[in-house]
């Protein structure tokens, strides 16, 4: 078949004999779909459409249509199992699904009145606020049910070459039955607990996320032993914000990696010249005229320049005090008194004291204190340094090139969100919010004295005693609070079984049946 003849098939002239049967099918299809919607729409005015009414109504209507199609004259049965009808129904159902995304579902009446004005009450009366639980939608589902059943019966019995069709369409029915069971019998609700032993025995039932006030017993005790809120490790970024709009907008973001040149929107650029992952400003001593003396000391691994009067505390009650003459002893367990002019060190403890000559390299208290160089006449100077290579308190010096002119920024501290302007934006050194990585409840269930410990996390629910518990909530302000959702839903296995059958059936129809048919044709 060439491309030309393919397109020619669309011309109505090619199917002259299809007209009469076709038009009856069109008529009957239209009346079935319109009838189901209209009937459902009228009935729901009189019947309070709870989930059970819905399921019972759909099942009864499905059975009724099915039986009627078998006995009524006028080839209804053929229409109901025709491809035209099926396609129409599928499109009708998809229109419902679309409508459900245009009108916000399951809001209080006031919402619709605000949103749609006088038409708001009409929206609610027609159940457009809860389309998928309306009786007119149930009418369509009933047709669907009857149609699938009918088309299957017409093709009965199952053969190897039609097994895919039967499997797929049986799957459709199974899922539908499962969904019906869910709608009618599923119970869901909240269990809110605090870590440290708070115990739940009931579920606070909700409908569309809103508590109904009803409490359903669990049938066992659920105790929250522990709750862990795990966050991602903090991240520091150089963010580029566009400032041309009404609001600053993050346009690009860079790893704080020294040396790499980055281009910015608009042609400017920058690079990190120096990075202090764990910035501390500290005072250093440099030689200078007519200054006080200064002494370099390392205490428990931390180094410092001491000037007269300075006191340097370390672990285990050790304190180093520096003076021109011998300073007075502070109330410390071990006082190490250093005199610059006498060049001597006195170590005073409750059990007595010892004196040492002050010299570079002197070690005291098993290496806890170590003396470095001394400067007889010193000046103070502030200096930035990194206390470690951990990103605890990062600071950076950038070289920013704006309009081709490079210039160096001062020290930018992430903790202060320091920023520097470029032509049309700003670079900000900043810490990202520590996002939540996981939240996990450690629980104990006990039933008739039998205890069991378990873990509930997002995507890792716990099933016990017919209930399944999902981790759904936490409270950043209350770290011991854990919000669980409890669900008891008898429809689930059926829905998934149905889905599995649909998938298997579709794959079989497309990739096995076609082969079988081709093989037969060749034979």
């Amino acid at each position, binding site marked *: 078949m060439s491309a030309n003849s393919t397109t020619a098939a669309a011309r109505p002239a090619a199917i002259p004999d299809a007209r009469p049967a076709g038009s009856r099918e069109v008529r009957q299809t239209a009346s079935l779909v319109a009838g189901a919607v209209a009937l459902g729409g009228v009935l729901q005015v009189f019947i309070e459409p709870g989930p059970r009414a819905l399921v019972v109504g759909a099942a009864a209507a499905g059975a009724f249509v099915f039986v009627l199609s078998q006995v009524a004259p006028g080839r209804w049965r053929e229409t109901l199992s025709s*491809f035209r009808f099926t*396609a129409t129904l599928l499109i009708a159902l*998809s229109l419902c699904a679309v409508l*459900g995304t245009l009108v916000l579902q399951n809001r209080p009446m006031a919402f619709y009145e605000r949103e749609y004005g006088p038409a708001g009450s009409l929206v609610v009366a027609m159940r457009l606020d809860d389309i998928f639980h309306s009786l007119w939608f149930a009418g369509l589902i009933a047709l669907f049910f009857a149609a699938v059943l009918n088309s299957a019966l017409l093709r009965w019995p199952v053969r190897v070459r039609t097994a895919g069709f039967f499997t797929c369409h049986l799957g459709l029915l199974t899922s539908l039955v499962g969904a019906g069971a869910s709608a009618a019998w599923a119970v869901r609700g909240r269990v809110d607990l605090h870590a440290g032993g708070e115990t739940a025995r009931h579920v606070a039932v909700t409908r569309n996320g809103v508590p109904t006030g009803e409490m359903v017993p669990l049938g066992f005790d659920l105790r929250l032993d522990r709750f862990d809120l795990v966050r991602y490790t903090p991240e520091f970024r150089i963010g580029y914000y566009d400032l041309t709009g009404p609001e600053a907008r*993050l346009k690009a973001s860079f790893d704080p990696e020294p040396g790499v040149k980055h281009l910015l929107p608009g042609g400017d650029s920058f690079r990190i010249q120096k990075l202090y992952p764990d910035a501390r400003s500290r005072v250093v001593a440099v030689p200078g005229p007519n200054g006080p003396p200064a002494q370099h000391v390392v205490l428990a691994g931390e180094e410092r320049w001491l000037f007269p009067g300075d006191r340097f505390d370390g672990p285990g009650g050790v304190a180093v005090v520096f003076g021109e003459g011998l300073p007075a002893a502070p109330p410390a367990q071990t006082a190490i008194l250093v005199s610059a002019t006498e060049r001597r060190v006195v170590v005073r403890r409750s059990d007595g004291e010892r004196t040492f000559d002050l010299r570079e390299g002197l070690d005291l208290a098993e290496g806890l204190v170590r003396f470095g160089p001394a400067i007889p006449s010193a000046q103070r100077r502030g200096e930035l340094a990194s206390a470690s290579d951990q990103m605890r308190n990062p600071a950076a010096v950038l070289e920013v090139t704006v309009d081709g002119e490079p210039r160096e920024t001062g020290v930018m501290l992430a903790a202060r969100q320091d920023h520097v302007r470029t032509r049309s934006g700003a670079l900000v050194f900043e810490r990202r919010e520590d996002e939540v990585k996981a939240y996990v409840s450690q629980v104990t269930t006990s039933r008739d004295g039998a205890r069991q410990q378990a873990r509930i996390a997002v*995507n890792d629910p716990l099933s016990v005693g017919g209930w399944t518990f999902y981790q759904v909530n936490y409270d950043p302000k209350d770290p011991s609070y854990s919000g669980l959702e409890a669900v008891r839903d008898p429809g689930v296995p059926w829905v*998934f079984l149905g889905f599995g059958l649909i998938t298997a059936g579709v794959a079989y129809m497309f990739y096995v049946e076609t082969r079988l048919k081709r093989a037969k044709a060749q034979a």
Partner: protein
Amino acid sequence: MFYILAEHPWFVATSAAYAAAMGLYAAAWRSTREIVGRIATGLMAAAIALNASLIVGRWIQADRAPFKSLFESLVFFSFTMGVVYLAMEKLYRTRVFGALAAMGSFLGLAYAVAKWDAEIVKLPPALQSGWFVPHVVVYFIGYGAAFFATVVAAVQLLAGHVPWVRRMLTLRAGTMLSGRALDLEQITYDAVKFGFTMLTVGLLVGSVWAKSAWGDYWVWDPKENWSLVTWLVYGAYLHLRRVKGWRGDRAAWLALAGFGVVMFTYLGMEMLPTAKASAHVYTSQ
């Protein structure tokens, strides 16, 4: 935009390879010299390999599957469009659709530049699931097949009305390798069948995942609804094929409509009045 491209040479190379493949595939419509078509295929394969390296690189850099943001998914969509096309080229032994397919992947990447992530976002707990990767991969392969079906359907429609497109489909063109005329309608149908199977699996996996993450397999969320609509529309296409009068142009239009719904489901959710209430609308920066 230049600042992005300057910092991401592999991305530029991938886009350039798709663009070059597009040019050569188009050239092969006229040139019957085999080498032109072969180079086109080679470039397409190279572009796909580069595209794969972008995905793998991002995967390593982000330390998670790179399917979280719209940007990341666009890069992946470009890849699946390319892969599905190349498989179809082999299957049907024709390069007729190469230029349009390469254009699809190229446009995917171009749009990705517009939606570039300012920074890599972390995976929230709900997405940390074994279902995440299969769900997305299956869906985007399905989308890739839907795209291919659309390309073929578009060519079919054009061939009916534009003489040079019709000529392109004759055996004298360098893009025809099988020695037989193409049955465009059948190719569209095959691609829809494959895409539909993927969408079915994707829907199934999605609902199993939703159940394990939120406790409900279906919540009538806008994105869920629209993927159902996609599935139903293609379902209607499959059933309508057997109704008299629904082959040819009409079927092709239906295939186009199906892809329109796919694209709306993928990119249009933000336009919906209900989007704010949705749990899975892609948020651009």
